């Protein structure tokens, strides 16, 4: 039995027609205001990486499972692959590039990750740091279990989480 396979049944997608006209958005990223015309389908993570040009926020999956793209949207950690860029219009965004001081002094969470060997390949790390800082804002003195549960949306393949948990607990002790 022959089968013809085309994933987009029906008429061709014409980029500009079907997906809507570009929309202008203005966002503040790490204290700097940006205005761009974006496709309505553009994800926030793609906007940050490709339009704003900040590539510290990584993409690790396509199902909002891994958390590598976590950033702060209006002060709270979100997976930026689950937010459309147009939804972030007017928002205040902080990415990993906005965590250290201008003089290069690491944020206490970044410092805790360094001191506790909470990273190896470093690909999940920006998202992990953003999620962990948000976690401590909600719960400044978490137990080990609360850290583990609080970070369950962020996957790491290198560390086995042992030193990530240790890093976050150390940051909490340091009052990060």
């Amino acid at each position, binding site marked *: 039995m022959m089968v*013809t396979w085309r994933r987009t049944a029906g008429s061709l997608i014409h980029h500009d027609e079907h997906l809507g006209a570009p929309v202008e958005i203005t966002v503040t990223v790490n204290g700097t205001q940006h205005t761009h015309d974006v496709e309505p389908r553009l994800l926030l993570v793609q906007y940050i990486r490709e339009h704003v040009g900040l590539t510290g926020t990584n993409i690790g999956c396509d*199902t909002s499972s891994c958390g590598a793209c976590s950033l702060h949207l209006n002060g709270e950690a979100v997976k930026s692959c689950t937010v459309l860029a147009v939804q972030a219009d007017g928002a205040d965004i902080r990415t*990993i*590039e906005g965590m250290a001081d201008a003089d290069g002094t690491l944020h206490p969470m970044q410092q805790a990750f*360094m001191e506790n060997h909470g*990273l190896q390949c470093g690909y999940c*790390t920006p998202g992990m740091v953003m999620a962990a800082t948000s976690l401590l804002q909600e719960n400044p003195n978490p137990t080990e279990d609360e850290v583990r549960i609080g970070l369950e949306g962020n*996957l790491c393949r*290198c560390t086995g989480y042992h*030193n990530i948990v240790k890093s976050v607990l150390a940051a909490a002790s340091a009052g990060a």
Partner: protein
Amino acid sequence: MTITEDPSTGTGVIGSRLLRKEDPVLLTGEAVFTNDMKVPGAFHLAVLRSPYAHATIVSIDTSAAAEMPGVRAVYTGADLADLWAAPMPCAWAVTEDMLNPPHHPIATDAVNFVGDGVAVVLADSDAIAHDAIDAIDVTYDPSDAVTDLEDALSDRVLVHSDLGTNTSYTWNLLIEETDGAVQRAFDKAAHTVSERYVQQRLIPMAMEPRAVVAIPQPFGGDITLYTSTQIPHVLKVMIAVTLGVPEHQLRVVAPAVGGGFGSKLDVYAEELLCVALSRKHGVPIRWNETRSENAVATIQGRGQIQRMELAADANGKLTAMRVRLTADMGAYMQLITPGIPLLGAFLYAGVYDLPKAYDFSCTGVFTNLTPTDAYRGAGRPEATYAIERAMDALATEIGIDPLELRRRNFIQPEQFPYEACTGLVYDSGDHDKAATIAADLIDYQAVRARQATQNVAGSTRRLGLGVSTYFEMCGLAPSRVLASLNYSAGGWEAATVRILPTAKVQVVTGTSPHGQGHETSWSMIVADKLGIDPADVDVLHSDTTIAPLGMDTYGSRSLPVGGVAVSMACDKVIEKAKQIAAHQMEANVDDLEFVDGEFRVTGTPSKSTPLAAIAFAAFTAHDLPDGLEPNLEAQVTYDPPNFSWPFGTHMCLVEVDTETGDVDVLQYVAVDDCGNQVNPLIVEGQVHGGVIQGLAQALYEGADYDTDGNLRTSTLADYLVPAASDVPPITLGRSVTPSPTNSLGVKGVGEAGTIGAAPAVMNAIVDALSGLGVRDVAMPASPNTIWNAVASAQSITTPGGTQ
């Protein structure tokens, strides 16, 4: 061997917990992964992948895709056929008659797994390229798929019909003191066990999916390939061969790489496509793998059925072993696919003193599934799993404690160097010590007592204690041994140490780190040798123009081969500096010693010259000994005389809820002896991560295919890479048995945790359930699997049934 002091020459750098140099750029988002590169004018490549596991391609209509705005080109396999000078490379023809059907980056007539490339699009953006592949019409004529190893062996359906069989090779290793020794041992044995284990396929899931950027130079034909790989050096050679590109015009760079675990130890279709098409179009070509693509288009690991037979005397001492493997190659051979199960062939006896009565055979078979290849441990976790599970089965058969059975069979410290029945020489070990440390950490006897109290009739929360011990054959590898295994490359590693005029040091290494911290560890080795600050050392790597010689990073080889090469290059550069120092100090070379970064006349410590002064003198070359070349630089290529043999004992304590099948890991203890530790912080991190990957094989992960060959776990929502909340903290113990094979006394540690963990966890689960009649549980031991195992053992056929 005994614990000795580390080999530090006095600065105390080696053995310290120096924080990693790699971290700041990774922590601030400044690190550049391949996908982060900004490449003006690049065409984005997307691959249309087969939705069928086994089909003939009848026709492909690319016209609609080609007309879409922003699409630059659309190619089918037939369109690209002229670009390939040779098929995709396999570097390990394990037998003379191994069947290896040629395959190319894009299929032409037939597809053989879900994910096989069928056509490619080049477009102005990634989004347009993906839109366009959806507009390609392909007509397939599907046929039955081979998805089960035993079905594959039957040749009911042939993956590659022109081969006439699904069996690629059978590789045998029969070692007998006299003919028939294995069978006689089994005939005479007081105890035997015969076990069958399944190593489920695993998806490596490095957090960074693969990414490729190929950039042609405007003139001259040179091309630079940036790719998320573990093997820039090997890749350069293989691309030259496969594309017919002059090797001297190729530069391969591995930028920041987000994990590999073996999955980036390969030559991939997309790397060849990007290079070939950037040459053809004269523009940069880039490709980013999606996670769902990664699950099917990047290699998978494991995939074996193991039959394991042990013979033992009345005391439980092993007398013979028979191993029969069926190994899943997948649809095609990738770079070292056929050799992976054979890396385990030499380790089935584990840490035990097995006489020359060993019968191993492995049959590699094709299936209509994603190709398999190296995944953390690569053959050695599988071997360790089989022997360690079988030792527990034997302990149950005999009726003794599993740790006691192991102790009766350990190779004893005084037997090292120990020539194993396979002919390989284990350089050092102290298994009883590692086991004792682990037993103390988990409080072995107290746990056994708790089990006796808790695991009583009717108890639904049962304690299990699992033990596993291992030897790992790593530090790949002596080139002559690789030759004897018919592997197509050597196992050496290169290093250059260059002392700059201002006494800062550049180290060039042929290893290619992707999370292992080589920049830090190599700096520590050099700092220790030269008596300088690690901050004054820069480690250059992963770029074939900057580091032209290398064999890259895999098989826990980087420190015991590459790190040792760095150390040897330091020795060589010190020897040269010493000649200059002797000349300037008007002393005899033999009277000089190099201590704490300065040359001293032995016995006259007041007379000294610092290395920094020699470095500047070597640079000015105003006053060098006759015949000595200016500058302080030394290169070493080190071919290790033996493998590296780390070992250890892991123990795991679980509580299993027999009503839900849930496993709670209460404690995990790992004692890994990797010889001298350059940086314990990094060693511990390697073990932590390795243990959790092994634990994940035991409890969570498995590539789940339906009978049509569709992967049902193709996303991170379906494939259970554990999160922090799914895994326990890990208690580490340490024994240090320095390797006598190399001057640093070091052994590899990258894969150790993974090797020890899966059998420790599974032994614990089976131990918890043994009182209910459960003898084995399949991996991954999901709640459903465990519940069914208990139900089956208790002859409960339906939920709610009675015992």
